[in-house]
């Protein structure tokens, strides 16, 4: 099937492009940028999308999602997660290994990829565990998982506390040239914390997770990355101190990259007031000062990518005591409009934002996506930066309705999501 996208504003940071052009897609690939479209428009075998007034960019790549399958299909499945991704403009999802069983060996990786091929409407790239069972003790089957298709390793959610184990994981993985993704958290410092430690945790009588809990592990992992030479990627940066540490490490030439989530750049811990479990997330939403630092980090390139840490949970699981509610925010379907606020608020240009949603994450996990150059896989998103709407979490395609953005009036709406030349979502 051929597809002609007419008169869209093409933003492709991989080639530093921002101009109105037409795109012709053939056989799932970007085939050309025809200047003249009259003849093509008459061709009945070519589908036409009029993208005038809309923005066309490489499909978004979310390098940090939880698709929950296998094991937690009541929260999300590969099918529903991919549908949610498509609705959010994502054409590639990089999924974390904390499923059940944990993705710590090639058979689980293969299962996920098989399911994704059969039911997933967007691309799925798995992350393997660092240690067996994410127990932090012995190394997972890293080589075999790499062969099976894992694009990085991480013990997300259950960070490796033993520095020696972490060191060996880094050493072992370095020749495979995939990143070690660190959910930086000292579990002992976090203790039974359930939100940011600060004014509001004290007020609400909830256990706090101090900034230091993240920063000591960011510092440790940077130190170990320096020692081992591995590519370290810091997931969901949430504190001012982490931004400082990463900035300093980058300046010294250490191979470290980082991501931030839309909720960590748009919310403060006040969101927890009223014991709103939809704002319970790990790392926790922090203070206005932290938000400022992360925004600065995005601006100066310290933070390379925006990833949602999409963590869907069922309504029943969240409608419990705050202490008992699982951590996580369902983020795929609000990522674009929330991130666009960074543009309207002057933090990033639209080009920079798209770079952090496309080309940069593709580079970090080393996949051949995130570009619209001729010959590239035709993964695209067409969106309207002006269209306003009100977030209704109950309308999410994701099974996880757990969003702190419910009821927010936002602008930025995905019109089409195209994966391999096929329209997988249209508004």
């Amino acid at each position, binding site marked *: 099937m051929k597809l002609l996208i007419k008169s869209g504003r093409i933003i492709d940071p991989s080639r530093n492009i921002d101009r109105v052009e037409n795109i012709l897609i053939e056989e799932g690939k970007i085939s050309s940028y025809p200047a003249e479209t009259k003849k093509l428009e008459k061709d009945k075998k070519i589908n036409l999308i009029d993208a005038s007034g809309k923005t066309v960019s490489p499909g978004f790549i979310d390098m940090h999602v939880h698709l929950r399958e296998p094991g937690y299909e009541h929260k999300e499945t590969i099918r529903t997660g991919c549908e949610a991704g498509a609705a959010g403009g994502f054409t590639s999802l990089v999924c974390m290994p904390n499923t059940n069983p944990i993705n710590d060996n090639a058979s689980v990786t293969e299962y996920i990829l098989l399911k994704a091929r059969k039911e997933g409407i967007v691309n799925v790239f798995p992350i393997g565990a660092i240690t067996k069972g994410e127990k932090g003790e012995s190394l997972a089957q890293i080589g075999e998982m790499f062969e099976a298709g894992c694009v990085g390793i991480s013990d997300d959610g259950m960070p490796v506390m033993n520095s020696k184990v972490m060191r060996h994981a880094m050493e072992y993985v370095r020749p495979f040239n995939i990143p070690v993704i660190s959910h930086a958290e000292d579990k002992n410092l976090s203790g039974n914390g359930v939100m940011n430690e*600060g*004014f509001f*945790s*004290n*007020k*609400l*009588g*909830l*256990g*706090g997770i101090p900034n230091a809990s993240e920063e000591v592990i960011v510092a440790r992992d940077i130190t170990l990355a320096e020692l081992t030479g591995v590519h370290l990627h810091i997931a969901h940066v949430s504190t001012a101190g982490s931004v400082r540490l990463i900035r300093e490490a980058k300046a010294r030439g250490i191979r470290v990259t980082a991501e931030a989530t839309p909720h960590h750049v748009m919310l403060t811990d006040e969101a927890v007031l*009223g*014991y709103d479990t939809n704002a319970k997330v790990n790392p926790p939403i922090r203070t206005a000062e932290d938000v400022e630092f992360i925004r600065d980090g995005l601006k100066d390139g310290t933070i390379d990518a925006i990833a949602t840490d999409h963590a869907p949970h069922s309504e*029943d699981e969240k*409608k*419990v*005591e*705050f*202490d*008992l509610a699982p951590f996580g925010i369902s983020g795929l379907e609000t990522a674009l409009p929330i991130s666009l606020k960074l543009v309207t608020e002057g933090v990033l240009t639209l080009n920079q934002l798209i770079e952090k949603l496309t080309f940069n994450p593709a580079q970090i996990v080393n996949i051949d996506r995130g570009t619209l150059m001729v010959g590239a896989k035709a993964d695209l998103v067409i969106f309207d930066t002006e269209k306003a709407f009100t977030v209704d979490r109950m309308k999410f395609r994701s099974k996880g309705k757990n969003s702190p953005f419910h009821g927010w009036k936002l602008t930025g709406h995905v019109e089409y999501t195209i994966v391999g030349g096929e329209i997988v979502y249209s508004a």
Partner: protein
Amino acid sequence: MVFQRKHILGLEELDAREINLVLDTAASMKEVSERDVKKVPALKGTTVVNLFFEPSTRTRSSFEIAEKRLSADVLNFTLSQSSVIKGETLLDTARNLEAMGAGVIVIRHSMSGAPWLLAKELHSSIINAGDGSHEHPSQALLDLFTIREIKGEIGGLVVVIVGDIRHSRVARSNIWGFLRLGAEVRVVGPATLIPKEIEYMDVKVFYTLEEALKDADVVIMLRIQMERQGSEYFPSLREYSKFYGLSREKLRIAKDDVSVMHPGPINRGVELSSEVADDVNSVILDQVSNGIAVRMAMLYLVASGGRNV
């Protein structure tokens, strides 16, 4: 003034007028408690459920007596936390009780915010009988009531709260309550047990008891639970008691007519020396008897306030 609230969840959300209304109502309720027939029909036909997820014979008994004096039908539901975690959710349990006709649910829970969950999801009036490390409104209200009775006025008093401020719901509720009514509030304890953000609540922080006690009108001793605090917060009970236990000698630093309070149960020899616990300055038994009147007032007011919502 009419009480507009359907629930009493915490002191933080009450303003001075509302707190005073509860205390005034409690004064009227106290008269009922002094009669030979200590029972009035106000809540006849109303079912009140005491939903307790933590064993607390004191608070539960006090609420139960208060409910019975108001002629409510009382249902006690005490669950251990472990049975809840594997079984039905808090919300399921509470919805079942509501379906049985509970008009008011009095909840005690080990986790902060649990009463808010019920208030959000149910139709019944909710009274917080203590949630995690958050609030314990009935305790603070009875402390305020007791002190107002003794001193006549709360405004201008110097109130010292001693011990584990970090984990104490009694401390949080009392801080809000005494501040709202115009007292100066000081907190004192080991640095590990005083969160640094407490200063934003407008209290003065001390780390030596002797300094904190200067000019004190009221001293509230918090219960120390070694099983909760563990050994990572302070080295031993002996050392805690040496620095933060209240002896008659240290008490002399406070004003002569200082009132000493303790939410109970007391660890004699840890928070208080026995002589202080039995001292004339100790109002601990007044606290217990006032507790019933204050809880009657809370029940009466939420049952009334709920109708306006």
